[in-house]
């Protein structure tokens, strides 16, 4: 009979359970506390709705009436996809070119160096001046903010392709096109997933910021801003929640899935 061993057993189990679900528990505790404080009337501020009201707003916006939030989300995702696709194609093309041709890289360097610290939001007034307040401004803002990390990732990825890999290829008489398609692009790609991910983060922030400023058509950013003006607090918070949830899904579902079918499968991920 050794109580010193028996006693900690349930404690260990409890600690394991708490550790495993700690993130969920903290989130629930935070939301619960918020609900309690507002529900009990301790916080009388119409700008702070209860979580239940926010969820109700999310439900209404997606599934009831004119499905305002649902269509806004579709339009936002459309702009994001278009802008991100162009940023990936353009950034990767420039990055691969710069990786293969050092002279081109040095020529591009000042532009890149000046571009890196530039917040996406400052390009919006400038672009609006040229292009008016249309879709083009929002999409270009996404491109302008997302291309930099993708360019830098492609540049580093291309530089990491060994001279021998290129030699092996040339020894087989590979054409320039095969060289690009079968060695350089995949060789650069294996190092590019982190930068694609960062680029997506930038694109996501840029599209919302541009929507709020440009206020053209529908979009989550526009919905939030409009809801503020009508003091529809629940919809406003629902929009914010939507942005956070979608951003989380993109980052935690899309990119891990991409890793699973590529670098994890090839045994290159640590």
């Amino acid at each position, binding site marked *: 009979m050794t109580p010193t061993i028996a006693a900690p057993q349930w404690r260990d189990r409890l600690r394991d359970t708490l550790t495993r679900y700690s993130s969920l528990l903290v989130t629930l505790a935070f939301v619960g506390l918020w609900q309690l404080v507002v529900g009990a009337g301790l916080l009388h501020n119409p700008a702070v709705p209860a979580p239940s009201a926010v969820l109700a707003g999310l439900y209404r916006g997606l599934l009831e009436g004119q499905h305002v939030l649902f269509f806004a989300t579709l339009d936002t995702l459309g702009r994001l996809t278009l802008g991100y696709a162009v940023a990936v194609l353009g950034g990767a093309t420039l990055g691969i070119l710069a990786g293969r041709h050092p002279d081109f890289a040095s020529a591009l360097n000042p532009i890149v160096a000046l571009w890196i610290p530039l917040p996406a939001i400052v390009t919006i007034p400038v672009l609006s001046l040229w292009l008016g307040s249309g879709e083009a401004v929002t999409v270009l803002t996404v491109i302008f903010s997302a291309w930099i990390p993708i360019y830098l990732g492609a540049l580093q990825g291309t530089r990491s392709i*060994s001279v*021998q*890999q290129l*030699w*092996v*290829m*040339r*020894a*087989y*008489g*590979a*054409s320039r096109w*095969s060289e690009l398609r*079968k*060695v350089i692009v*995949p*060789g650069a*790609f*294996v190092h590019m997933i982190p930068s694609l991910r960062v680029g997506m983060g930038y694109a996501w922030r840029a599209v919302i910021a541009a929507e709020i400023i440009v206020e053209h058509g529908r979009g989550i950013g526009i919905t939030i801003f409009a809801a503020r003006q009508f003091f529809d607090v629940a919809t406003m918070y629902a929009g914010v929640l939507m942005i956070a949830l979608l951003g989380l899904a993109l980052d935690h579902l899309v990119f891990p899935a991409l890793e699973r079918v*590529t670098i994890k*499968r*090839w*045994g*290159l991920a640590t």
Partner: protein
Amino acid sequence: MSAGTMEHEVQRPGAAAPKVVEARHLRKVYPEAHGQPPVVAIDDVSFEVRRREFTVFLGPSGCGKSTTLHMIGGFERQSEGSLLVHGQPIRGPGPDRGIVFQDFVLFPWRTVLANIAFGLEMMKRYTRAEIAERAHHYVEHLGLGGFANAYPSTLSGGMKQRVAIARTLATQPEFMLMDEPFAALDAQTRDRLIADLAAIASEQNTTFLFVTHDVREAIRLADRVLVFSPRPARIVESIEVTLPRPRDAYGAELLELDRHMRSLIGKGAEG
């Protein structure tokens, strides 16, 4: 066609075989860069390689033997002298000269089978079915059966080098350039690969040019050994090795040859 069967009946290329590579007074100088003075990597190297002769470039590390091989591959260009393949100056890399490196240089995003098929795909001469059939043949030929669909990251060093050799052999190049291919492997793995390569070389209609700093490796594989001096490289001696194969166990003659080569390299190292 399995490795090992023909090891004992090697056809000697002999002095009658035609010259396929001719190097005359090769010199390679790397120009000064980053404040470093110019480096003479190769001083005055002349040699010839006969058809199907397994030729080993033996010399101390960093002596310029790999540079010589890279020039034959067309990846680097000599500063002076002439380097001819079939009497023609080398204009660049080509599918007639396949290369295998010390660190394998596989494509990690391709399976073993797809790596072996790579060269065949690049040649644009074969249909998909032909490529698959040939690639499968070389998977078996190099003893990689069961690993066809594995990715390189899961393989040992020895297996990776088998894939690289298979990838090059699959395109049936006239020349097989091997740049210290076994230097990164442990002794046992290296031993097996040397034996298998000797067997493959004997049945392949290919001229092997093999760079190493390992005397044993040179003796076990070579029809001819070109012994390089330390940098700047010159050729100290060209030794024809006609002793019977396999040369896995050393007899008196092989031992004597081994001593002789070691003394040549050693002499060079002392200047």
